[in-house]
């Protein structure tokens, strides 16, 4: 089921990449787009607040002034405020669905998932209170329905809905309190969003400029074509029987007023609890986490720099070796992706020891074992050309590829592959070419595996792949779980190029 959903996501991705280009594919920028929409809401909100009157008798008039008299600025800002807020809901929903389908919410990632679920409540609190402050017929419905819904909790001495019983009962102070909550809730939301990304290194909080411009232009166009307007002044003596509801934020209120507040609470709390607990339903069976071997760690810090989850820190040396620092793994944060191994200079297959140990290792996939895999896989290759294909665990299922010229070596993440292993495979003539595949580009399961790998090959990130290694003998295609056809095509083209190359590999004696 999940695999089918993942393939569906990837199909949509491929379509989206064709339309937007891979770099601007909004479906791999969902978290960043939520941040972006948030900033649009904040900037437009600050502008609106300059002209907004928080008194219950003047709030409606001030919003009408913004909407109608100052339509070119205040009106557009009001609409942007509304539509960017609305956009956050589908984008957040897609963001959560995607992380769930791609299985990026369990194990150490429960923290980002759990804080995300809590943030939903702050997001809804921010949105719902925003509708109160306009004090039009919709605001009246929202005020009455929300207070009635809260009264269903039975925690208030007097029903708070009595504050909106009729025109005579309405309380200006209560209204001002809601205006205050509409400012406080988004600030708490921002604080929560900051906590949400705390375990991520280089979190993507800004979408690419062109995508950001596209979204802003779209929302601005929508604001001009279909501006957000009020629905007539509130009058508590008349029931707003028929209203244009914002279904993104207010969907729970009809449930509460049509059926019961208790049912609405059961649905809201039950759903929140269920999705909060998803990381443990079932829990991830995680492979053993990375371990530092002090004998081989010189505290260079590359593993700490490259870990996408802040699981590795540098601390003062404890073993008396003449290095200042040593790496230390926090098992609670480690996802066993092995990207740290790919960053370790000591994970070099050119080392003399038959069973060498890197400075940091994944116990289930030792660097020495990876070297052995290369040698073993290479010895089994028969044909004109020999290709070693490195695939990550979240990549395509390659069991159907029956090709004597191709050997597949699986890794937890492509970022685990030290560049020296590619060097070893080509320069020591274990293969004519090395092919890399795995998750879709811009959508690495471990966030930075593909990017770090590419930068190491391009000598923009340490450890560098040596210049002597012919780059034309390395190819890559980020197929994800579904694009086996695209991968096969790319492999065929790679083979053709390799066949056209001189057969004498620049084998070097490293011994």
């Amino acid at each position: 089921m999940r695999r089918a959903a993942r393939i569906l996501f990837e199909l949509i991705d491929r379509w989206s990449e064709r339309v937007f280009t891979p770099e601007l594919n909004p479906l791999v920028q969902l978290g960043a787009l939520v941040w972006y929409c948030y900033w649009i809401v904040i900037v437009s909100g600050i502008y609106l607040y300059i002209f907004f009157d928080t008194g219950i008798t003047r709030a409606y008039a001030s919003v009408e002034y913004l909407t109608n008299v100052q339509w070119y600025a205040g009106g557009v800002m009001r609409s942007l405020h509304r539509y960017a807020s609305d956009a956050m809901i589908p984008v957040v929903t897609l963001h959560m669905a995607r992380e769930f389908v791609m299985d990026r919410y369990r194990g150490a990632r429960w923290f980002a998932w759990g804080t995300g679920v809590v943030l939903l409540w702050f997001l809804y609190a921010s949105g719902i209170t925003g509708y109160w402050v306009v004090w039009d017929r919709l605001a009246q419905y929202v005020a009455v329905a929300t207070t009635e819904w809260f009264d269903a909790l039975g925690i208030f001495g007097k029903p708070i809905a009595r504050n909106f019983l009729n025109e005579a009962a309405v309380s200006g102070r209560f209204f001002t309190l809601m205006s205050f909550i509409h400012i406080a809730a988004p600030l708490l939301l921002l604080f929560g969003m900051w906590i949400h990304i705390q375990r991520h290194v280089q979190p993507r909080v800004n979408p690419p400029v062109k995508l950001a411009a596209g979204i802003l232009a779209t929302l601005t166009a929508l604001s001009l074509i279909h501006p957000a307007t009020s629905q007539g002044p509130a009058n508590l003596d008349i029931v707003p029987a028929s209203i244009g509801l914002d279904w993104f934020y207010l969907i729970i209120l009809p449930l509460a007023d049509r059926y019961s507040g208790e049912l609405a609470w059961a649905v809201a709390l039950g759903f929140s609890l269920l999705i909060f607990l998803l990381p443990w339903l079932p829990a991830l069976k995680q492979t053993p986490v990375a371990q530092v071997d002090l004998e081989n760690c010189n505290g260079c810090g590359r593993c700490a720099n490259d870990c996408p989850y802040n699981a590795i820190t540098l601390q003062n040396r404890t073993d008396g070796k003449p290095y200042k620092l040593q790496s230390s793994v926090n098992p609670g944060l480690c996802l066993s992706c092995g990207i740290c191994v790919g960053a370790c200079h000591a994970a070099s297959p050119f080392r003399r020891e038959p069973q060498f140990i890197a400075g940091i290792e994944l116990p289930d996939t030792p660097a020495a074992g990876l070297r052995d895999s290369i040698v073993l896989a290479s010895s089994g290759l028969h044909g004109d050309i020999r290709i070693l294909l490195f695939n990550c665990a979240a990549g395509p299922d390659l069991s159907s590829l029956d090709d004597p010229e191709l050997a597949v070596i699986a890794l937890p993440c492509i970022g685990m592959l030290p560049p020296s292993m590619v060097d070893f495979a080509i320069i020591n003539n274990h293969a004519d070419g090395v092919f890399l595949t795995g998750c879709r580009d811009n959508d690495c399961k471990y966030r930075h595996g593909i990017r770090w790998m590419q930068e190491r090959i391009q000598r923009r990130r340490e450890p560098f792949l040596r210049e002597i290694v012919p780059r034309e003998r390395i190819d890559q295609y980020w197929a994800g779980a579904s694009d086996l056809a695209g991968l096969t095509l790319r492999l065929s083209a790679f083979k053709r190029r390799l066949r056209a190359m001189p057969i004498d590999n620049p084998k070097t004696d490293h011994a």
Partner: protein
Amino acid sequence: MRDIPRWILLVLHYAVFAALIGFFSTRPVYRQLGPDLALIKLSFGHAGMHKEDCHKLTPEELAKLAANMRQPVSCKRERVPLLVELELDGEVILRQSLPPSGIAGDGESTIYHRIEVPAGQHDLTARLRDSRREEGFDYESAARVELAPEQNYVIDFRAESGGFIFP
């Protein structure tokens, strides 16, 4: 030129996104009250009588108390629940016991009840019992009202004003 179809598709995608946001931000229209209906809200807060009368302590009872606790009169805090009844055109449409609020059961009893009724003329009678009596009511008020469609008609209760208030 080769990019023109892609640009058209791009604009279409943004347009679909905008259309979805724009549509669901106000549509479909929600009707919370049917046409030709009015809403009656019965809502008030009122404290019932104490469950027991205060009683004067005997010298023996006073002697058992600590010196600083010797109040001559003892009053239990707990109040009786209210019984409220609303009759519409001769038919009882609400009869509810309202327990006192508070952990000790010494606070006000409250009610917030919505009833949708057809617009038009109606005879309303509201009754409330706030004493220890077993039968009958302590307050009763009646009114003939003309309710307009979508009208929000609130029935309040204030003992100091003589009981139920029909606007």
